[in-house]
């Protein structure tokens, strides 16, 4: 019984911890800027490829048929 309670509490606290520290969410601010800096190092100046076309507009576009 104690083991069951312990495992349950660990799972619940893990969920609480992940939620409190907002693990896995998109991080804006300095974290975003640092990520972009690294990404842009590999881009040619003037290139449109690799930034928003990788996941930006049109990314989910495509024919939708039916429901």
């Amino acid at each position, binding site marked *: 019984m104690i083991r*069951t309670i312990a495992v349950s509490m660990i799972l619940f606290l893990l969920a*609480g911890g992940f939620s409190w520290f907002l693990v896995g*969410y998109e991080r804006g601010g300095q974290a975003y800027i640092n990520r972009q800096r690294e990404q842009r190092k590999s881009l040619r100046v003037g290139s449109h490829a690799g930034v928003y076309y990788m996941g930006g507009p049109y990314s989910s*576009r495509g024919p939708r048929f039916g*429901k």
Partner: protein
Amino acid sequence: MPEEREDIQSIKCTACSGDLGRSTRIEGSGEDAEEVPIAKCLSCGKEYDQKTEEYYLVYAEKFRVGLENTAMKLGAKGEIDGVEYEIIGRIRYQDEEEWELDVWDEWLAVTADGSFHWFVEEEGEVHAYEEYVPASMDLEVSPSVFEFEGRRFSKENTGFVARIVYAEGELTWKPEIGEPAQCYDFRKEGYSYTIEQSEDEVSVTRGKRVPYKKVIMAFRKEDFMEKYGRTMLIRERYRRKAWIYLVMCALSFAAAVWGCFSGGEMRGAVDRSARMVLASNQPKSEENANFYFSQVLYTKPVELTRTDALYQIRVEVDTAVQAMSREWESYRLMLIKEDKYQELVKKAPARTAAAAPSADDGTVKPDDAPATELGQVLDEVDTFTEPLESVSINGDFWDEDGHDDEGYWHESETAIDKDFLLDEPGKYYIYLELYSQNRRNPDGIKITIVEGVRSYRYFVMVLMVFIVLWIINRVKSRSYNELPFDIATD
């Protein structure tokens, strides 16, 4: 085995006296077609299904499985609730409607005073029955209903035909294998009743459930009491675990709901009147795709101070300004921190001021706003070595319709929520890029910001885990069994 084979060989066809053997036939048609067992004459081919006595004689062996796996046994003596019983006979029945094995055992017991009792062992429960004389009973009220002590019962819901498939010991009559009995089982005022109707007599028995513990203690204490005790102990453990997981389910659900309803809208934070249209519906062509491009800059910054919770930005098509119809529009929204914005404006103050008058001075008509120099600079924002924006989110709106095999359909997505976490509090300017299939009013986009949003996805995940664990333990608390026969929870 040789004796059984002899029995089968002695069963003769009623039409030609040929030997009967086992066979199958297809019942139903199409997807419902099912191969079912039958007895068949090896000479004339006459078929005998489960509604004939011959069928039960041919398949007698099939119905005798697990004869020893019972809570009672012939000759056992024991005391239940102060009454001494001796088991003197057993009859095993099969439900005539079932092709599969569906048997139950009825044990005849005699007490010290010479009265007979039946113990029915079925689906993990034992019921003790005794003869009962009802105050009133009419089985022929109508073809579908019978009356029993002032109440009416449906024959269809309570009735079934039981076939004797095995008998041993001393019984109050001489049963025949395959002999049918029309039975009606029902409950009334806490008792279980069975009406058994044969060609020439009707008998009524009334019974109550007897806990397995009492039955095993009385008749099979040495054989099964230890296993019964262990089974009940482990079931109790699973039951407690199930309770713990159920409590955790409730806690996780509550936490997830709390997260779902967290956050509050920052009313008035996005001032639509303070915005500059830097470019409006410029025709563009990229990667073999033609589209219209617009840029909007909100000149009143939004103050975002929370770094301990999520922000949620909702971007939606403002249908009051312009509805969407059979078209798409994509957006990219950037948050530019105040210092970087000021730096940008310093670099091109004249261009900004001259080329992009504000909206609220009435000089901008969204559809013919010129392409500004600031707009051109921002159009190249991805090429800046030092990123200008602190957050960038994007999404697609669409509206489509058509016809399929179910008829006309119309679907659209005109609002998108995105969550993000900000690690730097401060004032941010909103810059919006719009890409559309058709010319669209850049004013037709509405932005809402919600602050203080809490995460709930991890609580939903553990809720799923706890639900699975609860189900597993709940099932095991009822099904764990070390005994050789089914046993329901007492």
